């Protein structure tokens, strides 16, 4: 496989990506994180672990996921060719499951019978509940009570899978508060509990570990693109909430000559309105959820409420490695509004017969903006991180339709 040498060696031993990342947690969690670092390092070096992970990805998730040429849509846009990495075809309908399987296997090796997770859109919660059922683990999922209302179908899916869903009433009652609550659970139940974080955020080693598990996306693309079109793409585009699907497809491409990486954040009602979730575009570095990164915060350092039509992007922080990629100019980060994302959502439905997740629709919308500005022989590879079944309610409501 053609793998470029990543032009940096991060995280360093203490979990930092330049000034970002690190281990900013209360003392009670420090030994648990040290234990996790050791366990994960042992797994990485164990061919049996690697083989089991790969077996599960192939037979349970259905990997490798295909790459699809969105020919009709590209034709109508009239410029560069758009290719979609079909993470929406994974079991459970999004990229999240890649990481959940990896972490659940680590949990099993550590002898932890109970797993917990935070979730926003519910995709990570569903993926965690799924692997917990698969491996016979107890599962508790924390979810902001606002998101419980927005994502009724996913709440029911988690319950069907045997998980307990705990609505979180504190703070803004969304993803960041679910993460706080999951951390509190972990601190209280360290001995028997493994915390499966759903994105490339949190204290070291999570940003690295989640990146490693999600990198399967980009590694497959490195092989698939030459097979399909004889070369690597000119652009790789992915939406960024916490940043796991983006990091998964970006990381193997960092340092590959001629490939530009573009992360798409949720601009909500527009960056200028203040109602958005674009931490890299509009935030400042600070410390939250165990790492230093770009955050949406007020003058006093309080985290502010965010907005996006997609619950999965509605988060005031971003993984620390993205903060580093931005500062090092190794990736560009742009914003797409709710309306632009919805437009792309509908276009993909009508023109390609694919119902994308609202999160992924942000990446699609940016591709739709960029493609017409480029010649027809340029190639855009978009990470279609998930499918839109979970978003039926939100989209229908926007169109004034009630079920």
């Amino acid at each position: 496989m053609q793998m470029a040498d990543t032009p940096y060696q991060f995280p360093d031993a203490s979990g930092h990506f330049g000034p970002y990342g690190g281990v900013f947690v209360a003392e009670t969690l420090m030994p648990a994180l040290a234990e996790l670092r050791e366990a994960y390092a042992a797994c990485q070096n164990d061919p049996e672990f690697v083989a089991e992970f790969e077996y599960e990805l192939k037979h349970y998730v259905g990997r490798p996921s295909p790459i699809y040429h969105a020919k009709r849509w590209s034709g109508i846009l009239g410029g560069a060719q758009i290719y979609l990495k079909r993470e929406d075809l994974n079991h459970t309908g999004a990229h999240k499951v890649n990481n959940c399987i990896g972490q659940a296997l680590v949990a099993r090796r550590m002898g932890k019978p109970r797993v917990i997770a935070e979730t926003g859109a519910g995709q990570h919660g569903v993926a965690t509940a799924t692997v917990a059922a698969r491996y016979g683990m107890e599962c508790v999922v924390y979810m902001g009570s606002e998101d419980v209302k927005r994502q009724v179908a996913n709440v029911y899916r988690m319950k069907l899978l045997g998980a307990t869903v705990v609505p979180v009433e504190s703070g803004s009652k969304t993803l960041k508060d679910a993460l706080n609550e999951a951390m509190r659970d972990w601190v209280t139940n360290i001995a028997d509990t493994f915390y499966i974080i759903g994105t490339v955020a949190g204290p070291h080693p999570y940003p690295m570990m989640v990146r490693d598990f999600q990198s399967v996306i980009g590694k497959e693309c490195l092989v698939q693109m030459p097979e399909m079109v004889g070369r690597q793409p000119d652009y790789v585009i992915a939406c960024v909430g916490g940043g796991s699907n983006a990091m998964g497809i970006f990381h193997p491409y960092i340092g590959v000559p001629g490939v530009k990486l573009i992360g798409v954040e949720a601009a909500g009602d527009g960056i200028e309105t203040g109602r958005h979730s674009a931490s890299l575009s509009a935030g400042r570095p600070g410390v939250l959820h165990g790492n230093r990164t770009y955050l949406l915060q007020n003058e006093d350092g309080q985290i502010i409420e965010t907005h996006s039509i997609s619950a999965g992007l509605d988060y005031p922080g971003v993984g620390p490695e993205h903060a580093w990629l931005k500062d090092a100019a190794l990736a560009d980060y742009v914003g797409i509004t709710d309306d632009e994302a919805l437009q792309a959502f509908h276009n993909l439905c009508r023109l390609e017969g694919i119902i994308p997740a609202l999160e992924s629709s942000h990446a699609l919308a940016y591709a739709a903006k960029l493609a017409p500005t480029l010649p027809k022989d340029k190639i855009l590879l978009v990470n279609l991180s998930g499918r839109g079944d979970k978003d039926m309610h939100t989209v229908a409501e926007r169109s004034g339709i009630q079920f």
Partner: protein
Amino acid sequence: MSRIQTVFQRLQGEGRKALIPFVTAGFPEPALTLPLMRALVEGGADIIELGVPFSDPMADGPTIQRASECALAQGMSMRKVLDAVRAFRSENAATPVVLMGYANPIEAMGVETFVAAARDAGVDGMLVVDYPPEESVAFAGAAKGAGLDPIFLLAPTSSEQRFADVAAVGSGYIYYVSLKGVTGSGKLDIDEVARRIPQIRAAVGMPVGVGFGIRDADSARRIGAVADAVVIGSRIIEEIEQSPRDEAAQRVAAFMRGIREALDTIGSAKGVTQ
């Protein structure tokens, strides 16, 4: 010698234990912070831990979360917390004030600016919950440079190596979290505390305070028998929540007196190593 060291030395001479209450600044309303601090002193506080409210208090249970949200909703901020300390210091030169909070409000102000402003306001120490020793070398250095004590946590999960790590950067006292969990939980294991404190005290060469889960005179007395200081937080916040606003200060003082009396019955104190 810092105000914090002075307090522990005096108490050791008297054979008494330190009582360290915690209140969230700005709760239940910003105007009550100063009267509540006075009430704590009146009730027998040796050091006051003043909570700096944060939007995402990851290490706190529901009681202190509620207090933080309430304070923030009324516009409490780091600057206003420092104003409250300045007002307190203008009438009380003896009782140390330790700020307890999270890293981000400090980083938003800038570490150097914060440390200078805290010193000028009359702050004596800082406990930043999400700054473990490995992430706070610069912060602890800046604090010590300004004559402030950076205070660190140890937990039941901490190894002996951690005792040494914390001792290397911390000063003032060590705050031993007496249970696995968040503030306000109820699973206090007194035998475990009794076993750990002497080891920790010997390793760190500082007084050791114990907090999380201490709710009444009995638990305070039993913890005080083995530790150098007893920290009470959530229970005081509950007292304030349950009081009519105009009685909150008196009721907090009365609650404190009950704890103080219990601590003072312990009699001969063994071994503050200062």
